[in-house]
Each structure stands twice: as structure tokens, then as C-alpha cells.
């Protein structure tokens, strides 16, 4: 599962930073039928979480209402240099993860 994440490379301590993630995923709703009338099984990313130096700072339970290739944006406070680590899992059990480091000054 390809994904893009955007976190500032550098921030001041205490600064509110914007974090963005875009994941390539079909987000199959479970309500659609294929060409011969069979229901297509739901397959969505159901949990997306972000840990900042091991502490969970963001968590989302996604479901059928979210479009394909979901884009999520949130804010957190830059506290210390380290890693932001994203993890997600879909209904078929496929996991994805991405990480990016941030340098916090001051």
C-alpha cells in the first residue's frame, strides 16, 4: 500500500504542526455489486493511528463512508525530536506503515 506523509522537517518546541497522510487504498464500501450481481466484500482501512515517539497522538476508525485513497490531516504539538509512525490495517488484514522524523529545536 503506497502512502505519502507530510510532516515538517523542523519545528520549534511547543509549535503546533500540521501532519498529513494520503494512502492508496480502494476503500471498497461493501455496498457495491460486481457485474454478475454478487456483493463485493467490504474492504476498508478500519484503523489508522499515529504515534509520536511511541505515544499515540492520533487515531481514526474509518468505515464505508470514506472515499478511496483516504486523505487525513491533523495537528499535534512538536515536543521533542524523534519519529512519527503511522500504522493502518484494512478489513483483509493487510497492514501498512510509514514513518518520518522531525527535528525539534529550542
Amino acid at each position, binding site marked *: 500500500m503506497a502512502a505519502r506523509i*507530510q510532516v515538517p522537517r523542523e519545528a520549534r518546541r511547543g509549535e503546533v504542526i500540521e501532519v498529513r497522510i494520503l494512502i492508496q487504498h480502494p476503500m471498497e464500501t461493501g455496498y457495491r455489486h460486481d457485474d454478475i450481481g454478487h456483493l463485493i466484500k467490504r474492504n476498508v482501512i478500519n484503523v489508522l493511528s499515529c504515534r509520536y515517539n511511541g505515544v499515540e497522538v492520533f487515531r481514526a476508525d474509518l468505515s464505508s463512508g470514506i472515499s478511496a485513497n483516504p486523505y487525513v490531516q491533523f495537528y499535534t504539538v512538536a515536543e521533542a525530536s524523534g519519529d512519527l509512525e503511522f500504522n493502518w490495517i484494512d478489513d483483509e488484514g493487510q497492514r501498512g506503515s510509514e514513518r518520518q522524523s522531525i527535528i525539534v529545536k529550542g
Partner: protein
Amino acid sequence: MTRARGWLALAAAALAAGAAHAEERAIPPGELKSGSAFLGSDLRALQNDDFANPGMLWVERGGKLWSEPAGKKNLACASCHQGTSMRGVAASYPKIDKASGKLVNLEGRINLCRTGRMGAQPLRYESEELLALTAYLARQSLGLPLAARIDGAARAHFEAGRASYHLRRGQMNLSCAHCHDAQWGRRLLSETISQGHPNAYPAYRMEWQTTGSLERRLRACLSGIRAEMLPYGSQEYLDLELFLAWRAQGLPIETPGVRR
């Protein structure tokens, strides 16, 4: 003798008129509007956001595929094109391939390289890989004006494309021109009819929830007017793509566009 000369003059006049007609533009260059001009501000903002534009997932994948070796000769696109800028390349397509004399679009060009130079299998039309490579190539011409040529061997294809564009078809008996030349800017149910330009393809379409080629978009129009959809890569689509590129001449490339 005089009569024969008269006929010749008439024939020449008819030819000249035909040529003049061919250059006539239903939408003058000053009034050309990209499809993004017909979007809401939200989708336009999404297209212009290099990070959030979902089409960039394909561009990024294309960048990786570009340097991945494939085929018997174990060559990647980058093996030959190393150090040369691909900027501007996409703007000149569809184009006559010098070796075969055939009209090819960017997808066709990629597959010609694969089969001819890399000894690799051609990529299936509309496959994720071909979309990714096409989007990656077109992205490098971002902002450059479309500049396909219609002279020489391309001329006949251009004329065929023009005829195809003006051909009434399907149960609704409509040609492309009926909507995109005569009614652009007006409403079709909840949609605003665009001028039908190809400058943002491959594009991410909300209706598809994925990235698709210009031919997929053409097929969607044909299905909308209840006309027969041709197979991907067919000659009629290629000719039409050339006519569309000429019709949009000067519009900047926006790939990957975001469309409704």
C-alpha cells in the same frame, strides 16, 4: 480546354476551402478554458495541492517504475533517458512515430519503448503501471502548453479525428461538438459542461475514485450518450486524441488533474 481549366480552378478552390475549414476553431484561443475552470473551488484546490492531489500517488509510482529494469535486456526507462530532461515531451503527443509511421499517444510511446528497446511485454492499457508511467511523464511537462503537430503524416489522422469529433452517434444522436463546442459553460443536470480538453490526463476522477486515461474519459462520454465504446488503443481514439490536442493547443498541462 477552358472548361477543363474551370473545373481545375473549382477543384482548387474547394481544396483551399477545405483546408481553411480545417483550421477553423469552434473555440478561439482566447476563450479556451481548461476543465479545472469548470470545477468547484474545493476540487481545484485539491488539484493544485501537490501533496493531497490523489493523482500524485500514481506520479510517484511512475517515478519508481521509471528506473526499474524490465524485460529481456534488463533495461529501465532511465537506462536510456538518463540525464536527459523529459520536460516538454508529453506536450507534443499524440505524435507520428518515425520508425513505424504510425500515430502514437504517450501510452503507445511507452509501450513501443518497452517492446522495441527493452524487450519487455507491453503494459496493458489502463493498467496501474501504464497509468503511473504516463502520469509521471506528463507531470514533467506541468504548465507547458499542448503543442501537438498536425502537419505531414499527422494530417490525415487529424482530419479523421475532426470527422470523428463531429460525428453524431449513439441513441442520443449527439456528436462531441454538440456539448463541448455549442453548450460549454451551461448546465447538464448538476454539472457544468466543460470544453472537453485533454490537458489534465491521466486524471483522478471522483466518479472513478481512481486515476484514468484520456481514453477512459472518452469512453465515459460515449457511454453517457449511449454510443458504442471502442476498445482501448483503437485508431479512432488516437485520431480523436490528436484532434483534441490541436483543439486545446496552448492550454497548459495539468496532469494529474482532479475531475468530478
